[in-house]
């Protein structure tokens, strides 16, 4: 077991000894491993990947259900030097929250969706799990608050955000993990499958007024959610890359993808106890929506072969080579990402800290029930502060040796 599994085990020991610690969703008494989650062991090497599935599966975290889940790992295995061909974002062990919340089990909410009463499964691929975090974020407070109050937060989040396949064209249910702790006492740890926008519908990235009915969501009973999935569409590429008015192609502008979440944890009486609405943005997805293409999906790398675009803008790195969409040399592999933290609301003045919700963050109860997920919410009401955060990861690039689409 690699260092994250080891760290989790050590943290479990610490957590057992410090009863006054806030109880994080994945700490506390660590159960024995009773099996593997659906999300575990689904990755296998292909193409130029040099790591084996066995090496990959050494990076695991045990959920409170005793199942083994995949978790964050570097793009290159430090022990063997082999490459996985994908990355999961920023190493969570650097977050100030890591000691408290531990490693993030990828797919935990997906695992418990049906047990909690939802009528269909929703499983997501492995490479789409992306971690981002920042310590001591200077928060903005609504109105004049920025001049009056000085509040910082630690934020660590993970979203399953696949930008290499047609999944997100129609499918709006994606797993999000969100941990926040602020100096004013605001804080929560939420794990849920959150519906982002309307099921089966996407919004055109370069013109949010245009909504496209992209097909039937999987699962077909996916509920609609707040927010939106703004995804690049062929017209964006046409206007901003292929035939821009000023003749200058701008891939970043055309391809920028923004998944704008409106997530919440709610009680059985539908009272919101915590809500957040971060925007997860990707500048270099390896696909865009094109109804004229097979599976409605085209590849931006193919545009680099057009006569006017050879060697231009993001195609500069490609030169005159003809490379495939999943080549590590492609500049479009979903490694340039950032998160707008936005609002962090807590309405839990009467407590308690621990709530059990279903995988959709609903039906919150103080007692666990089949399929429930343990959430932690500070005993606080921060309604007097419109606490919202800035951007994290704006200047980071998660490219690494061997990293390629699908990523």
């Amino acid at each position, binding site marked *: 077991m690699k260092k994250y599994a080891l760290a989790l085990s050590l943290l479990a020991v610490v957590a057992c000894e410090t009863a006054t610690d806030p109880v994080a969703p994945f700490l506390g008494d660590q159960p024995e491993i009773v099996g593997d989650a659906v999300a575990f062991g689904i990755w296998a090497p292909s193409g130029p990947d040099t790591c084996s599935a066995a090496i990959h599966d050494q990076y695991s975290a045990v959920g409170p259900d005793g199942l083994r889940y995949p978790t964050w790992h570097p793009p290159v295995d430090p022990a063997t030097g082999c490459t996985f061909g994908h990355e999961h974002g920023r190493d969570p062990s650097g977050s100030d929250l890591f000691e408290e919340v531990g490693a993030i089990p990828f797919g935990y909410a997906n695992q418990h969706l049906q047990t909690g009463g939802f009528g269909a499964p929703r499983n997501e691929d492995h490479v789409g799990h992306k971690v981002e975090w920042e310590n001591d974020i200077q928060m903005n407070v609504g109105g004049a608050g920025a*001049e*009056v*109050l000085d509040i910082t937060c630690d934020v660590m989040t993970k979203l399953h955000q696949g930008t290499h396949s047609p999944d997100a064209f129609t499918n709006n249910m994606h797993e999000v993990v969100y941990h926040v702790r602020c*100096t004013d006492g605001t804080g929560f740890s939420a794990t849920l499958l959150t519906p982002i926008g309307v099921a089966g519908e996407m919004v055109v990235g370069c013109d949010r007024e245009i909504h496209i009915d992209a097909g039937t969501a999987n699962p077909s009973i996916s509920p609609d959610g707040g927010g939106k999935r703004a995804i690049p569409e062929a017209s964006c590429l046409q206007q901003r890359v292929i035939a821009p008015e000023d003749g200058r192609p701008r891939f970043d502008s055309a391809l920028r993808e923004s998944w704008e979440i409106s997530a919440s944890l709610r009680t059985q009486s539908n009272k919101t106890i915590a809500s957040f609405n971060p925007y997860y943005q990707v500048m270099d997805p390896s696909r865009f929506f094109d109804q004229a293409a097979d599976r409605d999906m085209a590849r931006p790398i193919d545009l680099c072969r057009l006569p006017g675009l050879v060697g231009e803008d993001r195609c500069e790195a490609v030169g005159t080579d003809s490379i495939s969409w999943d080549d590590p040399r492609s500049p479009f592999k979903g490694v340039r990402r950032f998160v707008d933290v936005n609002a962090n609301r807590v309405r839990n003045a009467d407590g308690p800290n621990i709530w059990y919700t279903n995988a959709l963050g609903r039906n919150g109860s103080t007692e666990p029930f089949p399929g429930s997920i343990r959430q932690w919410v500070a005993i606080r009401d921060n309604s007097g502060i419109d606490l919202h955060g800035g951007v994290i990861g704006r200047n980071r690039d998660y490219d690494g040796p061997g990293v390629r689409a699908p990523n």
Partner: protein
Amino acid sequence: MKLTTVALLGLALVATPVAAQDGRSAGLWLDIAAAAGSARLSCDLCESGRDLGGSVELAVGAWAHPRLRVGIDAGALTRSDNNARETVYSSGVVAALYPRPASGLHLIAGLGWVGFRAEQFTYDAPRLRLGAGWDLPLTSGWVAGNRITVDGASFASLQNGGASVAESVGLSVVRFTLYIRRR
């Protein structure tokens, strides 16, 4: 406020003959002032900066004794930062004691209310004022001068839109003031 006014008028009636003995003006005095100052809220979450703003003050009162001037005052200190305007209002009773008969040096003390406003943020608390000043005679009826005062307040909550966002918040206001006063 009515009580204060009545009390001041009463003091004026009593004070007039006493003040006149010392050469200081009899009866009511009126003080108009402009100041540079800064305000700072103090709490765990409060922004720690202290930026300069402009202030105006008006005070009126009477001589209670040739060395003691009492009255009521009101003022506002304001500054704008990143399109957000912060204003500190204050009012209360004030007294100025002249320790040496022939000197313009005086010590200031006051009690009253202070209110902080920044869009939806509000803070209201009792305040204590301490300071010192120096009168310079201009004419027989007018003096000019300068003074430095510090207002302190504590034990109140900072509100935003009616909801408390911080408890036990302190507020301090420092002003350097130029004034003219009808004696």
